[in-house]
């Protein structure tokens, strides 16, 4: 087909560009040069995939791209469609701004001579995730899963404190367990069917499913591959490595790990569900029920674990476990709406969670690098944009309308209404309980970071805390005005800031710029720099805007996902 439009080369270009970017990094041993190259590559990949996505959504077709001179079953092949292009665009967008937001912490945490290695690992991570999204061959998926595992472990441990190395070894061992299981399933699948390409696997599997006696091997093979991917994407019972790894890494590493790396494996699982095992066969073999039950348990238990944490990043990491439970519950709903809700939640979580992690990093920067709640008391007043971003991220996680979290919860419940009598009550109860639990552990933190730091003898300041802050914004703003006026800083500044915390994004943007020069250094800062660099503010503002954008204009995104899933 000589008339292949030029943009069909984009997936191939983005994979090769990131790989070559990663390979050429050792020549630029200076951290800042490496960061600029990395950012350039991420922007190029994001733009390419966005153009591909717009084109594919309008034309509504998918394409296969031959890697090499030989067609599919002989040579390798990547397959693009609106769903994959959308995911690749969001992955590149989120990775770019997550690195931009956390760049201050990267230069602080990673030893100076190894910063270029950090950005090298970021390039390889992006290339492996995009390859996982686009690949059409199971063994290529296994090879790029290995690159993903190694690069993810490398960015966790590049912070070089004892705690990260312990977290890395646990993360590595659990991940290798998962990819060992995935490879075992792949080997058995190859033994039984004789194919590795996703397209040619499906007819053989369906034809084998007709003959009843093949049910056991098919069930075991699907269960083992799905179990391997569940272990790698930290579904509830296999999540023990996640809080350590995501809690101790630098803020941009944990943002990318939580937001993107976990989702790469889920997207591969979705592609295998649609192209290899067809959802109907999976439902008949009850694997979707197993995923559904694990998702439900994950939703609730993840939030319960998060309640017990007193460390802001570990709490956010546990809430990632809960959100992964949401996604798997969506997949387990075994219906078109459920799958759409799950993929929308992948997007909304991929946008909200990095914002939470970066905001947590920003708050910790201004309160002596401690992530404990008692040290973060009133930290938001020192780093206002991080405080605003954390509050918006928390509200979006709880699922308050106007934010990114709400449409996915809306579609989860509509998906539940469509499903059968066994799933509907479970989903609705689990949604309600989990949302309440989310509120129970996010709101106190928001209140805590926005409380005024009560100096001794400033007794009456406690007054406002007694009544439970059902809607955190309102009383808090009034209190902030009162305390701010008494403390330091002008009333106008306090009012505009207080209002920004509650009002819509537009106002917050202007509030954001105003905060830029508001480095009120009245606090005991261990070192002069407070980490509120322009890059940090820009990335926070962009995350907030995209959160609102996704929350308000979820209609077109949902149509694109529906079209993508049909063509998957």
């Amino acid at each position, binding site marked *: 087909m*000589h008339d*292949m439009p030029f943009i069909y*080369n984009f997936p*191939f270009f983005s994979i*090769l560009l990131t*790989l*070559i970017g*990663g*390979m*050429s990094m*050792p*020549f630029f041993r200076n951290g800042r040069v490496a960061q600029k190259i990395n950012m350039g590559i991420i922007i190029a990949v994001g733009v390419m995939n966005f153009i591909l996505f717009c084109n594919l959504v309008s034309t509504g077709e998918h394409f296969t791209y*031959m*890697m*090499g*001179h*030989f067609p599919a*079953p*002989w*040579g*390798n092949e990547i397959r693009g469609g609106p769903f994959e292009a959308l995911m690749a665009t969001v992955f590149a967008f989120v990775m770019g701004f997550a690195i931009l937001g956390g760049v201050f912490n990267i230069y602080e945490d990673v*030893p*100076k*001579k*190894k910063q270029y*290695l950090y950005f*090298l*690992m970021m390039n*390889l991570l992006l290339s492996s995730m995009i*390859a996982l999204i686009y690949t059409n*061959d199971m063994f*290529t998926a296994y*090879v790029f899963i290995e*690159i993903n595992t*190694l690069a993810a472990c*490398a960015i966790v*441990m*590049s912070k*070089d404190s004892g705690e990260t190395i312990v977290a890395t070894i646990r993360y590595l061992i659990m991940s290798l367990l998962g990819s060992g299981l995935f490879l*075992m399933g792949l080997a*058995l699948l190859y*033994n*039984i069917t*004789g*194919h590795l390409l996703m397209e040619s696997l499906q007819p053989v599997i369906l034809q084998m499913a007709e003959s009843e006696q093949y049910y*056991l*091997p098919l069930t*075991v*093979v699907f269960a*083992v591959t799905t179990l391997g991917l569940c272990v790698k994407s930290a579904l509830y019972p296999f999540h023990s490595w996640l809080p350590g790894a995501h809690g101790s890494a630098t803020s941009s590493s944990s943002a990318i790990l939580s937001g993107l790396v976990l989702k790469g494996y889920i997207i591969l699982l979705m592609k295998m569900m649609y192209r290899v095992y067809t959802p109907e066969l999976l439902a008949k073999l009850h694997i979707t029920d197993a995923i559904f039950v694990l998702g439900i348990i994950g939703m609730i238990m993840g939030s319960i674990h998060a309640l017990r944490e007193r460390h802001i990043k570990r709490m956010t990491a546990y809430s990632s476990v809960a959100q992964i439970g949401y996604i798997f519950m969506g997949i387990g709903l075994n219906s078109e709406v459920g799958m759409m809700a799950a993929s929308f939640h992948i997007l909304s979580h991929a946008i909200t969670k990095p914002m939470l992690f970066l905001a947590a990093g920003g708050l910790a920067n201004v309160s002596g690098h401690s992530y*404990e709640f*008692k040290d973060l*008391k009133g930290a938001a007043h020192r780093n206002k944009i991080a405080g605003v971003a954390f509050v918006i991220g928390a509200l979006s996680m709880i699922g308050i309308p106007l934010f990114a979290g709400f449409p996915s919860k809306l579609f989860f419940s509509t998906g539940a209404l469509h499903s059968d009598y066994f799933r509907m009550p479970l989903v609705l109860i689990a949604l309600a309980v989990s949302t309440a639990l989310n509120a129970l552990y996010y709101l*106190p933190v928001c209140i*805590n970071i926005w409380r005024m730091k009560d100096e001794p003898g400033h*007794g009456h300041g*406690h007054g406002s*805390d007694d009544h*439970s*802050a059902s809607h955190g914004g309102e009383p808090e703003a009034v209190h902030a005005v009162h305390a701010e006026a008494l403390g330091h800083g002008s009333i106008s500044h306090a009012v505009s800031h207080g209002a920004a915390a509650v009002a819509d994004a537009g106002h917050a943007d202007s509030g954001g710029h105003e905060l830029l020069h508001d480095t009120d250094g009245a606090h005991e800062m261990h070192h002069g720099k407070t980490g509120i660099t322009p890059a940090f503010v820009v990335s926070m503002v962009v995350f907030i805007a995209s959160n609102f954008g996704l929350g308000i204009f979820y209609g077109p995104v949902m149509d694109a996902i529906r079209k993508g899933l049909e063509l998957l």
Partner: protein
Amino acid sequence: MSEKHESHETSETEYKGSKNPFVAWVNADPTPEEAPWTEEKLEALRAGETYVREEKPVITEEERARRFNKVYKPLAVVLCCAFIALLVFVCLYTPPFGATDVPTNNEVSFKYIEDGLADTGATNVVAGMILDYRAFDTLGESSVLFTAVMSVMILLRKDRDGSLVNDPAEDAALAKEEKISVQHRDVILRTMAGIISPFVILFGIYVVLNGHISPGGGFSGGAIIGAGLILISQGFGSAKTKKFFNFKVFTIITSCSLLSYAALKCYSFYTGSHHIETGIPHGIPGAILSSGFILPLNIFVGLIVACTMFGFYSLFTKGEI
């Protein structure tokens, strides 16, 4: 007595404000059981008699870990045995070993064998398959090696300006070892290394160059060359290998061969997907300079694997290459 009371005063107001559990929790003050100041205890304190806090039987971490292990180990053993029994049972459904009418002997493998020579020019069909038919996997493969050596470098490489990695004790031990290996060298190792290592390196180069004709190829040849370099470095002390193989040489060889490997593959993928002939002749089957890209690719993969293996060795022993 009064100032002690005073100190209780402030801590008391601190706790007074947070008797309401929700607010105590919001303020993230110490969890209630750490501050058991109930009303009557405060009265007792004001009355001045001493107050003894009842010691809760604290389960030490080791105790809890041991109890968890006692439950975890048998459960894990039972689970594994059940999983293995299930997999053995599934193996019965797979076709018998060595049969001919097996689903894996389908048209894909027939084409590899029959058209392998014509398409790739490599008489070793496996090498032809790795470096031409399914070249994307091998590109991923080399970047797995590259990722591994770079992450080991993050972990173990000692940079001079005193990062966490190098501590004086280890440097002293290393220097002592170096001194020992210089003064009274291990005669057996040195003479044997002197005799064997040229043949090992020569054999490795042979395996890499003949990758597309005889079995072997980039991976095994590179590993043999890497093992040969390790033998030389072990036999003659690292100072000698440092002359021709230091960190700059390592990065140049690894990155350049990886980049040229990726460039060649880029070219062949792009021309392949657009059905443009690459214009590289396949040459006479069986000759060394045959089979298009496979020979240069084999050389690059051999270089990458050799440098990576030797890089692992020197990072592990000396902390820098």
